[in-house]
């Protein structure tokens, strides 16, 4: 199916039987290549419509005024308006929700980076009694699905006074087993010699970690930060459980609240979903190579 394959196959078969005159061979090759390309791009465009279409459609709906039909095949209005976005802001405290989501996602990213690199470094580099046990414990946190323990986590959070607070949203995912695994793998891949040289120069463990090892795993830190940020921004179930007062909602819970409680106005709901998704899509298109690297480092193992 690849160009290379088509190319080689045609020239090889031509070489072996040699019946076709050269110019016809090349003409049929070009034609076959063109057909192959056409089919490929047609399929790509079909998948584009299938996967990006709903977002585009929703965006179009979100900028349509009350006089324009949202039931036609044309996704875009003649006169775009932002009135649906102001309607969102009038119905729910959307700026507060954006702020809450930003606090939760940023804290989660920062805490995961700090806690996971500390733990990952120890597991990759230090020898101490109880290491295997710690390994098993962190592995267990990956294997036990959060949904299984959710009710008990709620009880724990309640006894810690974390119900209805953003801290309560943040803490359970502040050092995930996956983040620790990624950092540990990254530290293991570093050559030991550099750190050993630093040790001979009299650097302490802490200095070795901070000045030598940590700067060398910046890439993995970015991956951990992005994954933690996106997970926290998108998460729905846990904030729904722990946040009771609508003033404290994060954006995902707030948007569902908007659509479930206040409005059957599809234009306003569309505007709400766009507010929740556009920042993330921008983040993704800006940093996409890190997202794909993250799937490689985290997804396949996790």
């Amino acid at each position, binding site marked *: 199916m690849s160009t290379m394959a088509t190319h080689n196959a045609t020239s090889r078969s031509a070489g072996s039987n040699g019946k076709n005159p050269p110019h016809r061979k090349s003409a049929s090759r070009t034609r076959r290549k063109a057909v192959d390309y056409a089919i490929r791009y047609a399929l790509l465009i079909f998948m584009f419509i299938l996967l990006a279409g709903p*977002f585009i459609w929703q965006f179009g709906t979100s900028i349509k005024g009350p006089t324009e039909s949202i039931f036609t095949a044309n996704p875009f209005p003649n006169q775009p308006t932002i009135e649906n976005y102001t309607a969102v802001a009038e119905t729910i405290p959307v700026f507060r929700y954006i702020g809450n989501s930003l606090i939760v996602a940023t804290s989660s990213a920062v805490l995961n980076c700090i806690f996971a690199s500390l733990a990952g470094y120890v597991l990759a580099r230090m020898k101490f009694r109880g290491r295997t046990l710690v390994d098993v414990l962190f592995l267990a946190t990956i294997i036990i*699905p959060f949904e299984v323990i959710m009710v008990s986590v709620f009880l724990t959070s309640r006894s810690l006074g974390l119900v209805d607070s953003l801290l309560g949203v943040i803490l359970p995912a502040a050092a995930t087993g996956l983040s620790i695994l990624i950092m540990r793998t990254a530290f293991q891949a570093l050559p030991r010699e550099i750190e050993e040289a630093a040790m001979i120069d009299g650097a302490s463990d802490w200095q070795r970690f901070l000045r030598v090892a940590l700067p060398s795993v910046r890439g993995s830190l970015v991956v951990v930060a992005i994954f933690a940020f996106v997970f926290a921004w*998108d998460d729905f*179930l846990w904030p729904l459980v722990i946040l009771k007062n609508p003033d404290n909602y994060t954006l995902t819970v707030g948007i569902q609240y908007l659509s479930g409680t206040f409005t059957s106005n599809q234009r306003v709901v569309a505007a709400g979903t766009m507010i929740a998704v556009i920042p993330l899509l921008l983040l993704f298109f800006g940093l996409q190579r890190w997202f794909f690297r993250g799937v490689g480092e985290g997804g396949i193992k996790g």
Partner: protein
Amino acid sequence: MKAQYRWLPWLFLAPALVIAFLFHLGPFLNTIVLAFTDATTLGGGTFNGLDNFTSLAQDPQFWTSVRNTVLYAVVVVPLLMLLPLLLAVLVERNIPGIGFFRSVFYSPVVASMVVVGLIWSWLLSSDGAVNGVLQALRIVQEPLPFLTDTSLLLLSCMLVTVWKGLGYYMVIYLAALGNVSKELHEAAQVDGAGGGRRFWSITMPGVRPTMFLVGLLGAIASMKVFAEIFVISNGSAGPGGQARSLVYTIREVGLGLSGEIGYASAMSLALFVLTIGFSILYLRSQRSEQLR
């Protein structure tokens, strides 16, 4: 490398360990204990043996949840094993603009399930775009009740799960496709094997271990399904709550008004057994793979 101080590793590990114990391991042990009590959110909690489990066995709501959750995996897993692989084959070759397409195909993964669910509940509504297209093509006369019929609602949620997951598993498959022998493909083409034949006989065997892995990830994700159903049904899990998943019911029973913590914990253990069951199945099949 020897640590300078014996307590240093533990100091480094402390924050991660505290969180692991407080929010993962402790609650897990607590879930096991609570499953054998009649605890509620208001307190209580005396040991009641296997009462919760005998009640579960007779609880139609529980069995509906289990049935829907298992059905979810049965439908979603094969689709997630196959469709993203086809998509990966489509975007594998570096033709102009392919990076753009790859990124766009991944974008549903980045969006929250709440956003995706709300978009699709609009597309699937009786006057939504999907029914519009089906009616325009004269496939159906009347709009299909995607959101109000229990089976169709569940099916819609499944397709939304697949739609959102396509890009993620596509990226996993792309990495695996790099290891499939190009020579084998070329040789097969010389022998006159068409695209479908080569996909079946070369690509699929080549990415077999990855297909198993994707199957496992998909199965575990199916066991945990919640947001799709909650958002698309607007919190109701369909007419009479018949489209409920296990997690939906656990949340309703344990964290709803009645707050039956003990009973919900027993249900959580059932969920855990299901999830682990799939993982063990996977590891078994992996081992028999290696023995072959």
